[in-house]
């Protein structure tokens, strides 16, 4: 509702994203989740990398930092360690997080540092003209795969779980309210949280893949996603090619900044 307007830098709007781009929908879900969790604007930091998705920090009225390609998580790690009281939200894309910043992604997950990472997963490098990313689905077309992508894509939630993240979810731009709730739960989790937000790129991805309009791409998201509760009742054959959405994983593990504080106390003999 209009209560979320205060989190936007209205003078920076309209944003640079193409007509029908799902990034705006995911951004709006982030803003709603922050509103829902009642985070203090002055104690919230938004860190982003490079790419279409990472432009989002420009439009948000928090302490924001637009960093180097793939390195959003490294800047965010530094910010969180310097002041663990801050709520740090990382905005990144599928290429930024899993290709250029792939190593940072798995190590941030391994450390279980209290960051909320929202991956705007549009299956393509949109800003540079539609090259294949590590999340481009098999058989789809891109400028670097004119005969169809034959490489297997990353399953980003599985990668995050295997690397040690303590909250992993997947949502879509179509299931907007669910996405908002998933991001809110990610903020609530004291540890590394990953939300794989499937979003539409009608210009760089859709036009090459018979999904020419934003509505067609949203319909595709609706038709190809299965809620995790429903997926448990389905056979592996029925689940082939479907995206499972919802809260995929949650666990408890020691958090990095807390461990670091303990270390300081231990080596300084409890003087701090």
């Amino acid at each position, binding site marked *: 509702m209009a209560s979320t307007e205060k989190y936007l830098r209205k003078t920076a709007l309209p944003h640079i994203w193409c007509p029908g*781009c799902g990034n705006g929908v995911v951004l709006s879900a982030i803003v709603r989740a922050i509103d829902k969790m009642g985070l203090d604007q002055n104690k919230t930091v938004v860190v982003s990398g490079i790419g279409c998705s990472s432009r989002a920090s420009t439009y948000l009225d928090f302490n924001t930092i637009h960093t180097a390609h793939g390195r959003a998580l490294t800047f965010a790690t530094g910010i969180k360690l310097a002041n663990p009281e801050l709520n740090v939200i990382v905005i990144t894309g599928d290429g930024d997080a899993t290709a250029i910043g792939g190593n940072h992604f798995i190590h941030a997950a391994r450390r279980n540092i209290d960051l909320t990472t929202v991956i705007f997963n549009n299956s393509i490098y949109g800003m540079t003209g539609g090259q294949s990313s590590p999340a481009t689905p098999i058989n789809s077309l891109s400028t670097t795969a004119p005969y169809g992508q034959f490489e297997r894509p990353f399953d980003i939630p599985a990668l995050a779980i295997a690397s040690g993240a303590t909250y992993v979810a997947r949502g879509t731009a179509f299931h907007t309210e669910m996405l908002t709730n998933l991001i809110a739960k990610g903020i609530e989790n004291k540890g590394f949280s990953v939300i794989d937000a499937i979003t539409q790129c009608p210009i760089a991805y859709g036009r090459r893949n018979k999904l020419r309009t934003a509505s067609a791409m949203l319909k595709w998201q609706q038709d190809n996603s299965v809620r995790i509760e429903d997926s448990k009742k389905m056979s592996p054959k029925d689940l082939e090619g479907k995206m499972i959405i919802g809260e995929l994983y949650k666990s408890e593990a020691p958090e990095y900044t807390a461990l670091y504080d303990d270390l300081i106390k231990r080596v300084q003999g409890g003087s701090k």
Partner: protein
Amino acid sequence: MALNINVKLCKGCGICVEYCPTNVLALDEIGKVYIKNISECIYCGRCEIRCPDFAIMLTDDTEKTGRGDNK
């Protein structure tokens, strides 16, 4: 409740028109959204949450219903 459209932010993707359950919204001759039929509006907010451009806002103030540049 009021339905407020900021025409300067609209890029004419048509998502709101597609997902409005009561056909309140339409695109004009230059492809931007306008309120065709406010009497049918049930203020469900689907247009607002689906708009990628922050161009549609539902507010409590009924006087604000309409379309403008929302300065």
